[in-house]
């Protein structure tokens, strides 16, 4: 059972209380953008085996969206953070660097 702490209301929530919202920090491309950008925004995903950044919603709790940093290979949770940011905050990055030395950081946005 995956347990995430909702950064909005502070509750430690089981996955049954949460709704997964897919890959985080996607940059949106709309009308007028190139086909490559539009395709990649709509369909292509990192889908990593390891460190992953996701959107989650505290669906059966306070109802708010938030972000989570997780490892998809071990289900370790590095932390959760506000939905109002376009990349993971320094504190989360430090935790990941400490737990996964040598992990290759990708570009956000």
């Amino acid at each position: 059972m995956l347990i995430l702490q909702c950064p909005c209301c502070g509750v430690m929530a089981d996955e049954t209380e949460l709704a997964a919202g897919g890959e985080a920090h996607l940059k949106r491309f709309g009308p007028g953008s190139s086909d490559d950008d539009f395709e990649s925004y709509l369909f292509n995903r990192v889908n990593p085996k390891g460190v992953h950044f996701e959107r989650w919603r505290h669906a059966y709790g306070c109802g708010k969206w938030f972000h989570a940093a997780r490892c998809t290979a071990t289900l370790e949770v590095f932390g959760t953070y506000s939905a109002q940011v376009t990349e993971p905050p320094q504190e989360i990055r430090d935790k990941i660097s400490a737990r996964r030395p040598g992990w290759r950081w990708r570009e956000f946005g």
Partner: protein
Amino acid sequence: MKRYSAFAIAREALRHHSGWDRAWASPEPKKKYDAIIIGAGGHGLATAYYLGKNHGIRNVAILEKGWLGGGNTGRNTTIIRSNYLQDPSAAIYEKSRSLYEDLSQDLNYNVMFSPRGVMMLAQTQHEIRGYKRTAHANALQGVATEFIGPEKVKELCPIINIDGPRYPVLGALWQPRGGTARHDAVAWGYARACSDMGMHVIQKCEVTGIRRDGGKVVGVDTTRGAIDCDKLGIVVAGHSGVLADMAGFRLPVESLCLQALVSEPIKPCMDVVVMANTVHGYMSQSDKGEMVIGGGTDGFNNYTQRGSFHHIEETVRALIETFPMISRLKMLRQWGGIVDMTGDRSPILSKTPVEGIFLNCGWGTGGFKAIPGSGWGFAELMATGHSALCAEFSLDRFRAGRFIDESVAAGVAH
């Protein structure tokens, strides 16, 4: 290779079974192959087999990081059917189903194909309309299915409760020549036939990098050293994103965990496969007598082959309404496999942005049934650069908006 036959069993019985060969060889990797297939699941092995059998390409290696069929091929619930809605799907799944009919003879290996019939229950008005539509589409595609009423459902499967309180059974889409096969045997049978053609099936050999030169593939790095090749097939199901990353592109695929479970063995009580898509559960009885049960996928990206317990609870809860007699059955084992999900729930059989690299993935929760057909088409694509079976399943269909939408056709798509 010595052929398996009734005569061989009699001969060996008379000499203390001392004459059986190993089913396949375990060679050291060569420096170079004409084609390398990454992933010795059913799809990778079938691809290699038809490369050799149909196209005469036999200098081939199949590289597997774990053991033969240890991925989803050895973890699935073995439902075989071809009652899909869209024409390209019906073509490849029906080709596959028909190859299963005489696969045991073709491979000289008993894959235990059992065309016992598959029924997909309609438990809402929406499903009745949906399955009637599919039955009409199947009639045009030449796939033998029919929509049957609740009395016929009860007759074919007496242990079903057709007037459950929440979801009464209103009818079913029935495919009499659908069924099951023995999953390990499919992998083993293809591996034995590939090895017999001189191909190298190499286990415990993980691909860790893909080497390219000027936009073209030249080889792979593995845990057993670098190996060169002219053509490369990536056939790794849940790990497709990891391999695509090594080759420098991204895919419209997400990896999720799908679980299944089996009960203690009981006497024969059910000789068809039943899928209940609205309540998300399906069941069949194995030859050993275990009830084989599966449900929906877990909701988030996951590479651990475990899964969350509450999904098992949901599946079993749903099935108990339709099959009250299983309520006291003890469950023996539960497991998970990492399935490669695309947005339109259809596979990708395609060339890629890197010349020489071909991709076979996206079978998600329903690719066991497709193993022979996918191998047939994908081998043709790798050998000749074109395959009518695969053409519609190309990677660029997402960009073009040319989806092969099976997700609305079936809620649970095994």
